[in-house]
């Protein structure tokens, strides 16, 4: 099912959560809504689900205008950020809920629930209550519950946010595989760019209630449309009016064309990469990411002068005022 939203606006008091947002989600795609908190990504998801109503604009699922259709009749499955399990019901009853509401015959309910619990690998926990499950198990239960009604669209709000790192990685892979098998149009919200790039085949970057850019992970990383997208998707240095990825900086011991001298302030070995923290003669601090092999060849030591050249970088019209700063390694997030 194609999801298409047109010119959505949503205001909460004086806060504009969505500002004239239009978006088309391709049939059978796995799309991530990516942005910092307050960017409007969750509001957009909840409006698609019918849990919030837009002030203006429309939502279509397939050929149907569902803008005023209640969530019950939208044919969606929704996984809540904290899973919203029915605490007074067992895992089995949670998953069966949508089917019993639809008054499906008992044998069918039993078959579907059994299959789903096996699919999400919690069949042995069917008689437990949600409070007796771990975070990852609750997440799987919430997914099974949403899938039980065979939704045409699956919507997930920060599905992996509350899980520890290992379980998160595992469930990501699992969601990707599930999507590839079931081909349900899936939209999920995340603030983690790595998660979006890992799982989604289409990423929509949002900021301050607007869509900044959308595209594949590669497109967003290689061809960012704005300074915001460039710095949100991966680390970046600001050198004068150019934005340069730390791995696009060439370091040399001897002077050469287009290279400027900089002082090595610190060399950090991270195993698979080496981070070199640098300071230019005008005091500007930035950093370069090089391979361990490269670091070995250059024999970098603290206090040494190197010559730095940007292999490539981007300039954006109407960039931030000078002094808004280049981004040091501590502000870019991707270690």
């Amino acid at each position, binding site marked *: 099912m194609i999801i298409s939203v047109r010119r959505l606006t949503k205001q909460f008091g004086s806060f504009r959560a969505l500002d004239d947002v239009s978006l088309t989600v391709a049939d059978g795609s796995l799309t991530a809504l990516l942005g910092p908190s307050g960017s409007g990504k969750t509001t957009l998801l909840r409006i698609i689900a*019918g849990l919030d109503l837009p002030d203006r604009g429309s939502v279509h699922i397939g050929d149907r205008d569902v803008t005023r259709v209640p969530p019950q009749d939208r044919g969606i499955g929704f996984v809540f950020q904290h899973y919203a399990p029915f605490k007074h019901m067992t895992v089995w009853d949670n998953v069966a809920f949508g089917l019993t509401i639809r008054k499906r015959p008992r044998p069918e309910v039993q078959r579907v629930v059994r299959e789903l619990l096996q699919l999400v690998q919690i069949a042995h926990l069917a008689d437990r209550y949600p409070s007796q499950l771990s975070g990852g198990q609750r997440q799987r239960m919430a997914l099974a519950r949403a899938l039980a009604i065979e939704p045409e669209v699956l919507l997930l709000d920060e599905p992996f946010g509350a899980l520890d790192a290992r379980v998160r990685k595992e469930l990501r892979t699992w969601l990707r595989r599930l999507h590839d098998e079931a081909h349900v149009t899936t939209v999920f919200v995340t603030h983690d760019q790595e998660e979006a790039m890992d799982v989604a085949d289409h990423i929509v970057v949002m900021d301050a209630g607007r869509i900044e850019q959308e595209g594949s992970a590669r497109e967003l990383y290689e061809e960012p449309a704005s300074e915001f997208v460039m710095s949100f998707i991966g680390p970046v240095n600001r050198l004068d009016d150019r934005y340069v990825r730390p791995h696009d900086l060439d370091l040399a011991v001897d002077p050469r064309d287009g290279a400027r001298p900089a002082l090595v302030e610190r060399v950090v070995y991270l195993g698979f990469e080496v981070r070199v923290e640098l300071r230019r003669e005008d005091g500007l601090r930035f950093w370069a990411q090089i391979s361990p092999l490269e670091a070995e060849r250059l024999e970098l030591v603290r206090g040494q002068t190197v010559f730095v050249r940007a292999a490539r970088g981007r300039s954006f019209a109407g960039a931030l005022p000078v002094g808004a700063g280049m981004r040091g390694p501590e502000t870019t997030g991707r270690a």
Partner: protein
Amino acid sequence: MNLATTRAGQALPERREVAAHPHAARLTLRAIGLGYLSVLLALPVLMVFLRTFEHGLEPVLAALQRPAFGSAFWLTLQITLIAVPVNTVFGIIAALAIVRRRFPGRSLLNAVIDLPFVLSPVIIGLSLVLVYGQTGWLGGALGDLGIQIIFAPPGMILATLFVSLPFVVREVIPVLREVGTDQEQAAYTLGASRWRTFWRVTLPSVRWGVIYGVILTTARSLGEFGAVAIVSGKISGRTETLTTHVEERFLAFDLVGAYTASIVLALMALAVLFSMTVIQAGRHDKGNH
């Protein structure tokens, strides 16, 4: 080596002192707590029990067989059986409105619900007489229709409804707030209507609040004296409840009669308390909340 032994030797008695101290403190606290409770609660109740059976079982049985006692007992039961369900339904609706809806007068409603807590039952009784009495605001009109409220069971039911109104609301509101709306929204996305969501999700998830509220409402309805005493007129055999019956017997110097009715009332209250304890135990055993 020498040093270490000395240190250990010094440390040991110190540690023993530290350990002994909280033990003594705990015992003292326990003694104070139990002493306070027994002087204040257990002793008087025990005295009533002892006094009741002072002259053996026969006077007690005689008191139980008095028609006035029987009528008071049944009337108390009837009033409770009407007041509790009505206030339970009202309480759940009011709690939902206060927590989930935004409407003008919401905070006023929230404040008014506590009125029976802050007003003395005597004032509640008097105000009901003012409205529903023969010369009252509504009472005259109702009297012309042949409906008597004051000095009759309907007034007593009204008074009991009034004094026991806040319990379910006050017990359900915090639970409703804590549960939040996530589960209800999940039910909507799974296709459940608002009505089915209420029965399948909302009500079960606030059931402990409702149960506590019902128990407290029951206890209050059984034991209400002041408001009921004023609106009932305390007509023996017709508008007496167990509490006013106790007073009537006491003033008539029939101490055994008063004590017997007291004990019946106390046993009903204890049954309520016991059911509360059992339910609470069940709740912790299941671990499903």
